[in-house]
């Protein structure tokens, strides 16, 4: 990230502890770090820069107004994301109504054809992922597109569990979902991203080699 050194989780916890103790020296670092995180989450959920910046500000405002309600600094990341998720939902309710979609498991499995009751499996060559900056940027775009195409419920799970590395339980609490639903959605979301990357490897990487 440019201009924002990503913090490790224990540094986040320490900043939260300092802010609870009333030490404003931690304020700017905390704001810079979580503002970028909330912006990324809400940008991926809203796909609108202005909305994402407003969500980041509104969520941080709530965070500071209620900082004394954070009983355990160790839970600061999931607590902040819970507030961000609610701010994002409020923002989305005010704008466009997006109907929830569910993905079936099968649509993300590798290309298959029925063959006497059995199925055929074809997978791209993943042994060499792109290492040049241009291809890495293209691959990031492919990941971003895949995440962007997920239904909202799957996208939020992947962003929190797969990108922000909340635990399964934290993700479930943040999103008010049962743990089993988080696991199912995470798997489907990963399969969807894998499929997009598989397609990317079949086309873009081969095109560069030729």
């Amino acid at each position: 990230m440019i201009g924002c050194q990503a913090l490790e989780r224990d540094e986040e916890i320490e900043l939260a502890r300092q802010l609870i103790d009333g030490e404003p020296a931690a304020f700017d670092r905390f704001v810079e770090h979580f503002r970028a995180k909330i912006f990324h989450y809400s940008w991926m959920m809203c796909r609108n820069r202005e909305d994402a910046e407003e969500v980041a500000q509104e969520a941080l405002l709530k965070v500071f107004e209620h900082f004394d309600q954070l009983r355990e600094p160790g839970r600061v990341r999931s607590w902040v994301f819970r507030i961000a998720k609610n701010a994002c939902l409020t923002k989305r309710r005010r704008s466009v109504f997006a109907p929830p979609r569910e993905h079936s498991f099968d649509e993300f499995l590798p290309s298959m054809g029925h063959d006497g009751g059995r199925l055929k499996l074809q997978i791209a060559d993943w042994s060499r992922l792109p290492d040049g900056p241009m291809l890495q940027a293209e691959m990031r775009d492919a990941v971003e597109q895949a995440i962007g195409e997920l239904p909202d419920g799957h996208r939020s799970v992947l962003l929190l569990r797969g990108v922000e590395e909340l635990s399964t339980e934290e993700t479930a609490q943040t999103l008010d979902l049962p743990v089993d639903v988080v696991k199912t959605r995470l798997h489907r979301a990963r399969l969807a991203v894998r499929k997009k990357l598989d397609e990317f490897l079949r086309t873009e990487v081969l095109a560069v080699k030729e």
Partner: protein
Amino acid sequence: MEPHVHTKKCQEVLSRLSDYLNVDLPPDACAEIDAHLAGCPPCVEFAESLQKTVEICRRYRPAELPAPIGQEAREQLLEAYRRMLDARRTRGA
């Protein structure tokens, strides 16, 4: 790569791969998947590609960055923080 004859067992294994990769399955279910993978290189290949996907997602950050925070927005947040501290002191007094 040659098309692989993919069975219902493969399908069942692929449906549980995230839990397997997260080490989130009971030992007997893990052992069952291990046994299948030992004899099914294409499923291993698929599992490795999913594992790489997990790592790519973990490293992923959007190219889009927020604009630097404005002075007014920063003051608004700092004011909220100070109000929270004041209210807590008042409650504690």
